[in-house]
């Protein structure tokens, strides 16, 4: 597959970030950039710090050291909702839906930051609010349909199967019309068919101009989708580059397959399927 070259300046820049919990260092000296329009993969064994990194980019955690910039603006220290408003949306490793709301309502919440109605205008149902509400509903439907969720629109989110929850969460994130979308293990818990669908969906998302940062354990999927991959191990990046390079990087192979030169036991959670399904 031919991969586009990204000469565009950095879209998201993570610079020398560090974070620890108690005495445990989760991330240290992590730097990388994501270019506009790219799909960036972020891989590494469990506990490598991937989710911590996501949480810092989306503002749920603050780095102790270092900076994160989005479109040349420093976003470290901003609250999650402020970061969301700048155009970064995310999904969670465990789908984090509003379980007592319907699927449609969940996606409508995604339209929150694209709408304005206040306590006052909502309770009085001012004409502007009524129109906006119709628009929110229409937009939510627009994001439900391409993911095949229209039939589930009125179901309570709490009644959905795991795979469906992932899709609803994706629809909710897309409804915010993000410029950068962070997907935290979108394929985990999905069956083969659902994974294939997901692959197509992610491609469509990228084609619509959204930049993606993808944490994923399914190597086949990452290698197939990503333009560029960062490998994290014990909180620091050990390799960075296009999939072909990563696959042949001796460090990476060692971490995933071999056990380390300095005797750290292998991160044995992965049975790497490095080959793409043909």
């Amino acid at each position, binding site marked *: 597959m031919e991969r586009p070259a990204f000469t565009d300046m950095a879209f998201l820049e993570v610079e020398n970030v560090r974070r620890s919990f108690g005495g445990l260092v989760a991330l240290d000296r992590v730097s990388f950039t994501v270019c506009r329009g790219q799909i960036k993969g972020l891989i590494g064994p469990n506990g490598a710090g991937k989710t911590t990194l996501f949480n810092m980019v*989306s*503002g*749920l955690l603050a780095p102790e050291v270092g900076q994160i910039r989005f479109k040349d603006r420093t976003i470290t220290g901003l*609250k*999650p*909702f402020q970061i*969301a*408003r700048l155009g970064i*949306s*995310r999904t*969670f490793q465990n789908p*984090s*839906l*509003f*379980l*007592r*709301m*319907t699927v449609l*309502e969940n996606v*409508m*919440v*995604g*339209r*929150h*930051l694209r*709408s304005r*109605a*206040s*306590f006052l205008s*909502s*309770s*009085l*149902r001012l004409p502007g*609010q009524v129109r*906006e*509400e119709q628009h*929110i509903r229409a937009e939510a439907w627009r994001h439900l349909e391409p993911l095949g969720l229209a039939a589930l629109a*009125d179901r*309570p989110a709490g009644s959905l199967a795991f795979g469906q929850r992932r899709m609803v969460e994706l629809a*909710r994130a897309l409804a*915010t019309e993000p410029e950068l979308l962070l997907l935290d293990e979108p394929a985990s818990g999905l069956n083969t068919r659902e994974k294939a669908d997901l692959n197509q969906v992610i491609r469509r998302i990228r084609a619509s101009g959204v930049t993606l940062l993808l944490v994923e354990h399914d190597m086949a999927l990452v290698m197939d989708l990503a333009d560029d991959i960062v490998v994290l191990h014990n909180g620091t990046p050990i390799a960075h580059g296009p999939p072909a390079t990563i696959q042949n990087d001796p460090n990476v192979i060692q971490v995933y397959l071999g056990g380390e030169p300095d005797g750290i036991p292998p991160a044995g959670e992965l049975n790497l399927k490095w080959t793409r399904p043909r």
Partner: protein
Amino acid sequence: MRFLQCNTPFATFAVLAVVTQLVLRAAGMEYCLTQLTMALYYALVVLGLCLVTGHAGQVSLGHAAFFAIGGYTSAFLTTHDFGPLPEPAWATGLKQARVLIEHSDLYGGTALSVSPWAAVVVALLLTFVVAHLIGYPALRLKGHYLAMATLGFGLIVSKIVVGTAQLGASDGITGVPEWPLGFGLTVSGRRTLRVENYYIACGLLLLTLVLLRNLIRSRVGRALQAIHDRETAANAMGINTAAYKLGAFVLSALLAALAGVFFTHYTGSISPSEAGALKSVRYLALAAAGGMASLWGVTAMSVILNYLSLRGFFGSYDNAVFGAILILIISLAPEGPLKPLGQWLRHGLNRNHHPRDETTGAPPGASDGAPRIH
């Protein structure tokens, strides 16, 4: 058709209100309207809790304090003698604008007090400020901690009320004047105005219900529900969770204060027991018993139980019966006894027509959604 369907509950409420009044008149029991009116005002407080606890998921054990702040501020300003005033321009100005009015005091002299309208405005403003001051730090807390912070706030207010001589200490404030609302309506406990005041309370409650219903089925309502369900995710979706929680809290505090103001002018007095922790507990418990998130369940429960309590139906065991009812309802039907009824109604109605694209899909008469408290 759509319009009718959305508004049937409100029409039902209005019809029920009128029928109740007519039946009581026919039965010669119009005196019951007095307690019913008071119960309707109490229901306003519980509805506020329905919003902040049932929908936004934030527990408050301090709402009696807001009721008391409303009631006491209004009572104090309308009964305290601020005269004789110095005569600079602003004082005369206040008199001319009828913010300050002269009335005869208990001993036949004249006293200069604040007019009811002005007092109500001040009461609501004060509540607005206090609710922000307490809500801002308290709403960062969760669960038991938030409950304790609001309870602590309520206790402080109630101790201050009991301990301040100007507020009548343990006697409270009596002789609160009636409140001419305009349009020929007056909030007053006079017997001749009993029916009128019953309808004022009904109207206020109905208005509140409509506004809250609109709010709940809107962008704001969804944001609050999202916060209740999963705060982190709500924040990541661009919802300023702190601001929305505070907004719901302040709104419910204002409702409680408004109830306090009307209640005080209606009964002509306010006593420290209105500020007590037991009252706060009662409000929260009524909301829980009504299904927490269901506007109609909460309204029905609080009007009925408060009415029975005010009529002295539970006798000297009032608190015990109240406590027992709460325990029973919460242990046997934690989502409120009206929930099963609502489901049954929903089921019956859905057979006839399918209100598909209604915001919550809730047909009339049913609760406004699943009870939502965690």
